[in-house]
């Protein structure tokens, strides 16, 4: 499990001075402060090389898919380390010092809280903390593959915080389910999700009970567990399997009883024996014996997680996310085999995908969804993301606010539904590069200098390698230079909007 980030609150618990810590948070330029904590720095390197000579270079491609895009300097680092070593490092996020990013999200205090505590917090505050935390970590965390996997699991175990009882429990779910197991074992991840108050509420298992023989179990979670989380819709289960799984799941709920004896458990996962159907069940042909009680949950999860259909379903989804949509059959097959052979070891599975031949050859065939576009834009120009109301508004306009998708299948992966969002992407790109995104800051002159360019004389098109992993084509350069040569506005604004054009270009919408 990833160590708990040291946040403002935990620093306070450790006895640091309230006044000194508050001063960091209050200063608009507090990212500069990051540098004064020894070993904690996430600024750009002094010198960054422009990536790519011809074609999108392999390190850039890897970062596009497995790191939400490259920040200036990242390609140099992967090249220096070697791809394999970078992947190895990233697959062990617990070994990566991420305190700089922890500082950036320290004011998202809901993320530290228990479900019960958050019941009394304004819903808007919890939602804001959830979104800011997700966005800032996606931009700034040094645990790149981990963050990308967090995004993947947030779709796989999608939930909408607007559902009653879900919002207050989502921060716990984010910590103890998604982040804790993002690169662990799939079975542990599903086990944690099945015990997550947020999931129990979102898919109604909190209401799933059989107190009297006439009670019909609530099948909602059982169905989605089989259809979405494990086997997949064509995973070979029957309606009867869903009903039997629902019987196994009766009584796994969220403690909500009044009374002193429950006071410390309220809002937490609970097994209520009096709600549990303790008869024998048969799921996918395997018997769950009678009188199993609380053990029924793990018996059920062992059966569904261990089924070959689950390996295939997860391999397909991961390859669709990382390689291509639809993914080549060869890589799905080999990934499913690794999944089965390693007992669902997600590290091994992700390593296999990222080092596959298919990954290497499928360059530029994925379309970025809006969240990926926003994160990779800020990263490409070396921006500092504050995730204020402006960015959140863009996520809303682009229809891609984390934890807002209404149905449990998660935001669509395919590109077509997102093609109506280009206008807002263009506006975002212009707002970002002209520094009109609240406190989010971009310093293009500084970036050009670090890249060894004559900042004032250079064309915005010279920064194309940071966005595309290759120099601008003649056509791209012509379009941008023609814009740069026009008269309206200041030279700096025109340069900035020239860089925005790079972020608007088709080459930046694909990865």
């Amino acid at each position: 499990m990833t160590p708990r980030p040291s946040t403002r609150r935990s620093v306070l618990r450790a006895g640091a001075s309230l006044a000194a810590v508050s001063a960091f948070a209050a200063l608009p330029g507090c990212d500069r402060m990051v540098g004064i904590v020894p070993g904690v720095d996430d600024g750009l390197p002094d010198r960054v090389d422009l990536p790519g000579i011809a074609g999108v270079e392999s390190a850039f491609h890897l970062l596009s898919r497995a790191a939400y895009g490259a920040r200036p300097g990242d390609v140099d680092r992967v090249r220096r380390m070697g791809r394999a070593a970078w992947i190895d490092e990233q697959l062990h996020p617990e070994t990566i010092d991420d305190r700089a990013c922890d500082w950036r999200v320290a004011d998202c205090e809901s993320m530290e809280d228990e479900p019960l505590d958050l019941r009394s917090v304004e819903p808007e505050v919890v939602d804001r903390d959830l979104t800011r935390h997700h966005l800032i970590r996606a931009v700034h965390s040094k645990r790149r593959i981990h963050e990308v996997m967090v995004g993947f699991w947030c779709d796989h175990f999608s939930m909408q915080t607007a559902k009653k009882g879900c919002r207050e429990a989502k921060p716990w779910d984010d910590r103890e389910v998604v982040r804790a197991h993002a690169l662990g074992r799939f079975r542990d991840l599903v086990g944690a999700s099945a015990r997550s108050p947020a999931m129990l509420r979102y898919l109604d298992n909190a209401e799933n009970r059989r107190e009297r023989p006439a009670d019909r179990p609530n099948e909602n979670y059982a169905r989605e567990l089989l259809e979405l989380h494990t086997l997949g819709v064509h995973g070979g289960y029957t309606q009867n399997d869903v009903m039997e799984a629902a019987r196994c799941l009766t009584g796994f709920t969220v403690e909500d009883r009044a009374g002193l004896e429950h006071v410390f458990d309220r809002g937490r996962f609970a097994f209520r024996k009096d709600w549990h159907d303790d008869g024998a069940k048969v799921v996918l042909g395997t018997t769950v014996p009678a009188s199993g009680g609380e053990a029924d949950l793990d018996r059920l999860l062992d059966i569904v997680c261990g089924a070959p259909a689950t390996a295939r379903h997860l391999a397909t989804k991961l390859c669709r996310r990382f390689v291509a949509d639809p993914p080549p059959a060869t890589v799905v097959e080999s990934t499913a085999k690794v999944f089965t052979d390693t007992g669902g070891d997600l590290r091994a599975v992700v390593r296999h995908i990222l080092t596959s031949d298919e990954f290497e050859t499928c360059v530029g065939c994925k379309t970025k969804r809006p969240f990926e576009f926003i994160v990779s834009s800020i990263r490409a120009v070396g921006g500092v993301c504050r995730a204020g109301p402006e960015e959140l508004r863009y996520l809303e306009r682009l229809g891609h606010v984390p934890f807002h998708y209404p149905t449990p299948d998660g935001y669509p992966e395919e590109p077509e539904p997102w093609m109506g969002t280009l206008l807002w992407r263009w506006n975002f790109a212009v707002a970002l590069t002209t520094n009109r995104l609240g406190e989010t800051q971009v310093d293009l002159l500084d970036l050009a200098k670090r890249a060894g360019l004559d900042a004032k004389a250079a064309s915005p098109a010279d920064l194309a390698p940071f966005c595309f992993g290759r120099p601008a084509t003649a056509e791209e350069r012509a379009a941008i230079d023609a814009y740069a040569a026009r008269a309206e506005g200041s030279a700096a604004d025109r340069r900035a909007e020239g860089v925005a054009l790079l972020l608007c270009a088709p080459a930046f919408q694909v990865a």
Partner: protein
Amino acid sequence: MTEPRTLVVVFLRGGMDGLSAVAPYAEAAYHRARPTLRLAEPRSSSMAAGPLRLDDRFALHEDLAALRPLWDDQRLAIVHAIGSDDSTRSHFEAQDQMEHGASEAQPVAGGWAARWLRSAAEGGALSAIAFGTQLPESLRGAPSACSVESLDELAVGTKTGDAKGFAAALAALHPDGGPSATALVRKGARDALALLDRVEELRRDAKSAPVAAETDLGRALSQVARLVESDVGLRIATIDHGGFDTHFGQAVGLPGRLKELGEALAGFDRILGGRRDRVTTLCVTEFGRRLAENSSLGTDHGRGGVAFALGGGVRGGRVVCDWPGLAEDSLDDGLDLKVTTDYRDLLWETLAARFGATDVASVFPGHAPRPVGVMG
């Protein structure tokens, strides 16, 4: 379908009092339950003041008089005793249920309009627009839907002020063709640029463009009319019209809201002109209000309400309903007008008749729609 069609959904927030908007004047129980708020006997001549007689049972509130020509033209139909099975009588629950296309028996997450757009697999540059600060629940889950307060927001906001040059550069960056992912983006971008062009033309003509009515609702409908006119591929527009939660002093609060509604809808029909048959407008509300007026001269949350359907495809000039009556034993919980038409039946009939929708399960899962008879 030869010409592109548009659906406009006006959500009357707060629970419009259907028993005032379209009053059952012929029922003695109505007059008994509403000693101060009841409508007067309808006038027979169009010159006199007072409610307008629609048929032997119902009269239209005089502040909706602007709709009378549409009624006479058989372009406006009224559905009475319509609503959902939500029994909480909570605004939040009932609005959500209606926007999700759900019922108590069949809860479903996400918006019905979003599911319809997804099942129709259309992703034009502007297939759905919501007027307001945020996307309504009915469009939740429609990734290409956008919410704007005004069409002016459909632009690239450059800091240099050179939106024209920026658009030209974008056009140069998006030539036809390329590998499939790139080609898709290029096509999407050219659609978006075409949209910007048309909206820009609309902005230029804004001063001379006719306005449905000088109210928020009227201005929003005027912008819908302009989008319809410029063929941007708009399939659905949603607009909120609020202020119907008339617990207190209804006789003061309600007329203004009704007048705005009637005049904006009539003005919308007028400025659509020759395109009016391409647009169908539905006005829905989360519930009607209690039959008996309360002690503060208002009405409380009830059940059955009224919906208006006007424009293309509507067989109008009729109040469509399976009238449950107002006798105490025919009321819901002994208090409220019963719901005899499921709101989903009206929505589905419109989608099927006007937009060729065929897969009801993809839009209203678990619902078996019954014909309402509003669409011809």
